[in-house]
């Protein structure tokens, strides 16, 4: 890692990275193009990215005619809660699964995985019935609980996988220095797991930030809408407001990108384990 490459090798690496970046970006540029179109059409025969008569009207209309900022607020509220729950519960549970042997460990790990295997078609109706029975319709709490539960299994597994790569000797040293079980986890191991925490945070964020199927079933009032359902109101059978939809989809992805940018400092800072010989 972090070694210098020769010039031809570097050129080849750049060529490959640029090719993949182009593939990643091109369809998104199409979305940009739709958002700039003066008429609400999804497709165009023209391959130009900046359409004829390009306009920012859709972006302006979003903030002027739609309660867009309210949706952002609701979404942020829910998403931050899910992120906090996800990081808190996954970092602790993942640690326990990684470090300790206890009855039910294997069964626990496996059942986490099993919860991910329910197809959506199996969950939707009963989840709705359950939430109606628990009076959680039209509340954010219901959504926060459900989103956390969709994010947690992966987060726990991924935290566990990362803890597994951190040597045991660190805790042993910490315990000798007089830290308790939780102390050695919290003070010593958790900071070292920063890259995994970043992924956990990002993943929890994304699973709450873009979800709309459950939200659409549960929220009945426009002033409680989250961004994805707000977006869905532009989408209508055979008369979708493509311009508004594309514009808001792009705006929705900005916080995710910003969060990634902010967190990637820890993702790649490489809190090196080299100082501790494993």
């Amino acid at each position, binding site marked *: 890692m972090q070694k210098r490459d020769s010039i031809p090798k570097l050129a080849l690496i750049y060529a490959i990275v640029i090719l993949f970046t182009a593939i990643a970006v091109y369809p998104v540029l199409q979305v940009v193009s739709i958002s700039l179109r003066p008429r609400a059409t999804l497709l165009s025969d023209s391959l130009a990215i900046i359409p004829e008569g390009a306009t920012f009207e859709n972006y302006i209309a979003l903030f002027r005619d739609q309660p867009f900022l309210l949706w952002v607020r609701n979404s942020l509220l829910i998403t931050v809660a899910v992120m906090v729950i996800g990081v808190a519960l996954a970092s602790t549970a993942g640690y326990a699964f990684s470090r300790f042997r*206890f009855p039910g460990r294997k069964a626990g790990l496996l059942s986490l995985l099993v919860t991910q295997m329910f197809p959506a078609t199996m969950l939707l109706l009963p989840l709705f019935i359950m939430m109606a029975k628990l009076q959680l319709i039209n509340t954010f709490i219901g959504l926060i609980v459900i989103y956390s*539960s969709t994010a947690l299994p992966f987060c726990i597994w991924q935290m566990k996988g990362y803890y*597994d790569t951190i040597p045991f000797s660190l805790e042993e040293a910490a315990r000798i220095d007089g830290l308790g079980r939780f102390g050695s986890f919290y003070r010593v191991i958790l900071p070292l797991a920063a890259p995994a925490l970043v992924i956990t945070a990002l993943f929890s964020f994304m699973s709450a930030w873009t979800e709309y199927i459950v939200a659409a079933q549960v929220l009945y009032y426009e002033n409680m809408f989250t961004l994805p359902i707000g977006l869905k109101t532009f989408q209508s059978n055979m008369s979708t407001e493509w311009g508004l939809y594309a514009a808001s989809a792009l705006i929705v992805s900005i916080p995710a990108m910003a969060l990634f940018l902010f967190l990637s400092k820890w993702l790649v800072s490489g809190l090196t384990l080299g100082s501790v010989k494993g």
Partner: protein
Amino acid sequence: MRIIERIPWKRAAFAAAVCIAFCGTARAQVNLHLWHQMRPDAREILKERIRVFEKLHPGITVMQLYKENEELRVGYQAAAAFTGGGPELVYGPSDFVGAFESMHIIKPLEDVFPKAMLDQLDVKAHTVYRGHLYQIGDEIGNHLALIWNKRLFRQAGLDRAPKTLDELVSFGKKLTLDRNGDGVTDQYGLVWNYTEPFFFIPFYTSFGGWVMDDKGAPALDNTASVRAFDYVLGLRDRARIIPRECDYEIADSKFTEARAAMIINGSWAWSKYMEALGADFGIAMLPMNEETGLWAAPMVSSKGYFVNTSVEGATLDAVRTFVTFMLSPETQLAFATKLKTIPSNLAAQRDPLVLGDPVIAVSIEQARVGKAMPLVPEMRAIWDAMRPPYQNLLGGNITAAKAAREQQRLALQKIGELNEGKDDNEETARGNALVVGIIYILGALIALVALVLLVTRFLVPLFRNAKTLDSGNARFAVMMILPAAVLMFGVVVYPFFYNLVISLSNMSMLTVNSWSIIGFDQYGKVFGIDRFLDTMAKPDASVWMAFGQMFSTEFYGVFVKTIIWTVVNVFFHVTIGVFLAMLLNRKLPGKSLFRILLILPWAVPQYITALTWRGMLNTDSGAINAILKQVFSIAPLPWLTDSTLAFVSVIMTNIWLGFPFMMLIALGGLQSIPRELYEAAEIDGASAWQQFRTITVPLLKPVMIPAITLGIVWTFNSINVVWLVSNGGQPADQTHILVSYVYRAAFNLYRYGYAAAFSFVIFLILALFSITFMRRSSATENVY
């Protein structure tokens, strides 16, 4: 000082609160919830009218909620039929009535509204079903007509719309142009969403056909079908006036961009085209078939208000007041003049604003020759039956005669499936008593075993100090896991058992309120065991024939596709992801920019990017074919209309969507590999490939294994991309994986029991796979 200033405010607020509470009791404020599927421009008018209404009736508040058409239907059914809740009012198309009535979730309205009020409305707007009035319409129509671009017609020397099917062809030929002579059509004579049965109906009726006979049985296998099929194929293959590939969005954009001279589209789109074309907007009736003397008659339906069956008392009074207001001439004119709809109020129909409107005049004529859409729920089964053979015909896979036969066969099959449980009576119930008894005993046994295991294997070791176990550590670990475990268990356990119970039941559209446990029949249907037994029961059957019948069940084919889908996707997600992560894990100036751009596919909402891919995959105007042509000189490929290529397309899109996530995980994982290992390997003279094999792969494994395992599970179950890119399994329901198939074949026809069984089978397949996979990978669980 500041505190003193605040006090009066607080007092005022308190006083106001008291007043509101008091006024509330005095006047009984009623809240009405209205769920509707009005399109954006109609929504604005609705909101405006609600404001006016609330001013007139301060005691009533109306909360409107928009839901997309299908989501409105499904959402209301879930809320009303399964929880007894839901909104007081639902606004939607009249064909919701069949399913709503079967589930007893809407109220008969003939006694709710005074006869004098109902008499003010056009009878065509009254949705009467099985002898009761269930919906009061505010709009008649929702029908197709022909829209033409007058400027393009003038350029071709034409001054009017075609009046006959022959003229449609001859005009169309004049209007289809290849301006620069490069062999690619620049302007089409006609576009419309012709792959969808609803848009094919006018041609079917013009040859004398109709979807049902007098008794309500499907009537699709006849000469009218064959000739109408042939006519549409002729437009595409002989006259070449319509694009080879044309769905709703393609037609819409081509016409809006003046690259098509005519479009067949419904009343919901007309105002948009008026705005886009201005003075060049022309509307005409769909042409007449000179041969048969019949009009190309579109289906006509109405839209209006349903009332929730649970509404009573003061709320019902408020509902009556609100609906009456929404059907008043004033409100109806507000909608009609802006949206060019046909109002249902007779006074509004006679208003000069409506009478004098040229668009509404054509619309009324078109609706007059149109045919009323059947209200029975069987219509949904017929649509589902028409789609695959028709699209197979368009794909050139079968003949018109075969397509006609096939759609009739499918219609009968699907109607049977829709109405399953209809003949279940007490006798069958008694016959099942033994099975049901066994199921209950089995359930009780499993619960008992689980309880015993919980106590002996978990609780006892945890609290009794054993030699083999450090129970202090164990208790600490359990405490660390407890919050997560409680949350997961709380969310998942009810849906799991609910689904299990329903999968053993006969719950369907007709038995939503009266379902009972019937045993393993639904599982038998999933695997085609019922077909096996039916064939074996025939006198001249062999075992092989029976197996043949069994394996003709869709499950097996779709299962194989799902495996391919999962393996190919995850393989590329992981290889591309790890590859890019390793490239980005070097000293590379500008890498943070690449990193952020590379996660774009993950960050932008899937719904729109998946549809963008649909555009890129278009045969004639898509970017992918353009690149293939320019760089590799490959002829345009029919990505979305050929069944194999469509499957490839869906996979490509999903690979694009999924690789950034794996890249992210790999980037995180690479951080945990000590640099010294590579340095040591370098000194030992290991090649880059050897370093990758012996250091990167094994050390990346613990981080990647969970991501890969879950990636497999998620991909196996990911319904969105398949559904969006293939437009619900097109062509001809050939592009399905198991989950999307459940959605199409089971939920769409309200087969809850069958859907639950099918879902459970999907779950079992995955569980079986993962346990094996985990066993094999557990050897590498602890690397250090």
